[in-house]
């Protein structure tokens, strides 16, 4: 089912979705675009390249309250916080970011003890993927092509969208998407030549070149294992790192969190908040022992986790090449070039 509407009718489509649940879509803000819960249908803006923060915020918010307690009251009075989870439409997600959900699903719900918060939010959300504009030159930070992700991959989306000038095409990908699209007012059926245009665009998405290097998951995992203890290499690549952690916060596949109790005037909340392996105290134990006191050890942890440990534990590389870490790094550390260097790291081993 391929439907279409026009960009100027986007507010109508947004209003229609807002009637059915929460609409989360790209919104233009002072520093750039971000996914926000829409309160005014006119806010939705699809003239964007990608958002600053990844859409993982929808399933894994920056803070998640677990329990409310009072330090003056017995433990039995503490109340678990019921998260407010409504049917949600996550609108305008780029293919590489859609891929990140699948990677995060493995960690949060498909292995070990399932995380109830991630699962409930994920189950309640319908994803509208949105193809990159392949008529533009690729963003210099991005490298999703290296990871086998096309600029217009509909996989993982419920509905996949494509913009052609002033027309927005919407195709149902999953049964959930099919159900939804069938019942949305204001959409018209696409003509046969438009269907051909849509299919061709998706097929050609794989030919769209971002930065590229030949990476095989198993091989790169072993390469990083081999250079893990090569301090020269890690010191060199992490020389400029400030340990600020921005790369992890903007990353769609970083999931580390802290659980902390915040108490004010006796009333408190136990909540989980994003944390980052880039911070000194991340692994600091109460005894004073800290296995990662050096910047290079922490950058090494982050990169090896994504390109080595994750592969051995879960299968896929834990990176989708969205380029956010490179784009927002204040000292221009580029994960792609570190991966490239690791491939050639045998030269460093001889040094």
């Amino acid at each position, binding site marked *: 089912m391929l439907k279409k509407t026009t960009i100027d009718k986007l507010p109508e489509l947004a209003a229609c979705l807002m009637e059915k649940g929460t609409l989360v879509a790209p919104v233009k803000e002072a520093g750039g675009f971000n996914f926000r819960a829409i309160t005014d249908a006119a806010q939705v803006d699809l003239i964007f390249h990608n958002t600053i923060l990844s859409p993982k915020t929808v399933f894994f918010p920056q803070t998640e309250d*677990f*329990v409310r*307690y009072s*330090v003056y009251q*017995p*433990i*039995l009075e*503490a109340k*678990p916080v*019921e*998260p407010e989870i409504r049917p949600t439409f996550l609108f305008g997600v780029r293919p590489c970011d859609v891929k990140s959900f699948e990677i995060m699903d493995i*960690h*949060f719900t498909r*292995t*070990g*003890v399932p*995380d*109830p918060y991630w699962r*409930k939010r994920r189950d309640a959300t319908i994803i509208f993927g949105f193809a990159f504009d392949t008529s533009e030159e690729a963003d210099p930070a991005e490298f999703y092509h290296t990871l086998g992700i096309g600029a217009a991959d509909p996989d993982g989306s419920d509905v996949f969208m494509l913009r052609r000038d002033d027309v927005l095409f919407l195709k149902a990908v999953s049964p959930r998407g099919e159900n939804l699209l069938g019942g949305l007012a204001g959409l018209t059926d696409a003509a046969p030549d438009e269907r051909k245009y849509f299919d061709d665009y998706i097929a050609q998405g794989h030919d769209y070149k971002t930065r590229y290097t030949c990476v095989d998951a198993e091989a790169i995992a072993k390469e990083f*294992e081999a250079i*893990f*203890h090569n301090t020269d290499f890690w010191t060199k690549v992490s020389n400029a790192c400030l340990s600020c952690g921005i790369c992890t916060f903007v990353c769609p596949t970083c*999931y*580390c*969190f*802290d*659980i*902390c*109790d915040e*108490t004010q005037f006796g009333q*408190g909340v*136990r909540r*989980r908040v994003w*944390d980052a*392996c880039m911070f000194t105290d*991340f*692994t*600091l*134990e*109460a*005894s*004073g*022992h800290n*296995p*990662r006191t050096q910047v290079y*050890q922490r950058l090494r*942890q982050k990169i*090896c*986790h994504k390109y*080595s*440990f*994750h592969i*051995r*534990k879960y299968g896929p590389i834990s990176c989708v090449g969205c380029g956010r870490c490179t784009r927002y790094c204040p000292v221009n550390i580029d994960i792609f070039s570190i991966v490239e260097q690791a491939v050639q790291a045998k030269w460093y081993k001889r040094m």
Partner: protein
Amino acid sequence: MSENNPYIPMPVEISKIIDEVDTHDIKTFRFTFVNKDDEQKFVYLPGQFAELSIYGKGESPIGIASAPTDAGYVEFTVQRAGAILPGLVTSALHDMDEGGRIGLRGPLGHSWPIEFLEKKNIVVVGGGFAFTTLRSLVKYMLHKDNRSRFGDITVIYGARTPGLLCYKDELAAWEKRSDIKTIITVDKGNETWTGREGFVPAVCKDVAPSPENAVAVICGPPVMIKFTLPVFFELGFSKENILTSLEMRMKCGIGKCGRCNVGYKYVCSDGPVFSLAELEDLPRDF
């Protein structure tokens, strides 16, 4: 959402506090479950741990010191942490009295591999208060229903001084039994100490347990482990038959928060028990 939510602790009540050492900073806390359902669900084996949870302070992952054969309660031996950082949870717990209530999340992690240990001779080596999950293992193996499942049991346990030995009454009882060989050592004795003196690795070398059909289960401070592992390796124990338990800073305890990640393992959900062979497969990053 609170049903089966792994992040929400269950309430437990302190029914007994035992002051273990003469420096009074290590105590064993016995907890009973406030809800009987929770007690039914808390099924564990020696070597597993749990998060002790105090609202307003936080959570601490602590090895379970009691044995599954101890019905009706669960025990944790806790040191008041704070040499470098204030140990918020452990300090608050040490300041509590019997009857006080805290939260408990668990049991977490993998136990000592009981099925693997069956029919083998077991050498238990412990140092300081890291003996807790080993005490659980020894109590479990010595239980009348379990003793016949295991071969010879040797316990080598050391502390810096006689006053720093934990579970003194139990050690005395084990020394009197014929179905367990108990060797207690201290780094430095005092005027009343009549037992053995010497560091744990040296005592292990001296006792020289046979590697024949034997597994060494070792837990202690890093420096003790560092020097004890090679002793057993030299005695002829294979790397698969030398077991230890790792510690890393933890938060969730269920392999989600990423904090205790070492290589492709999470210490909480893939460990904390590892064989020497498994440890050598991990990067030296802990």
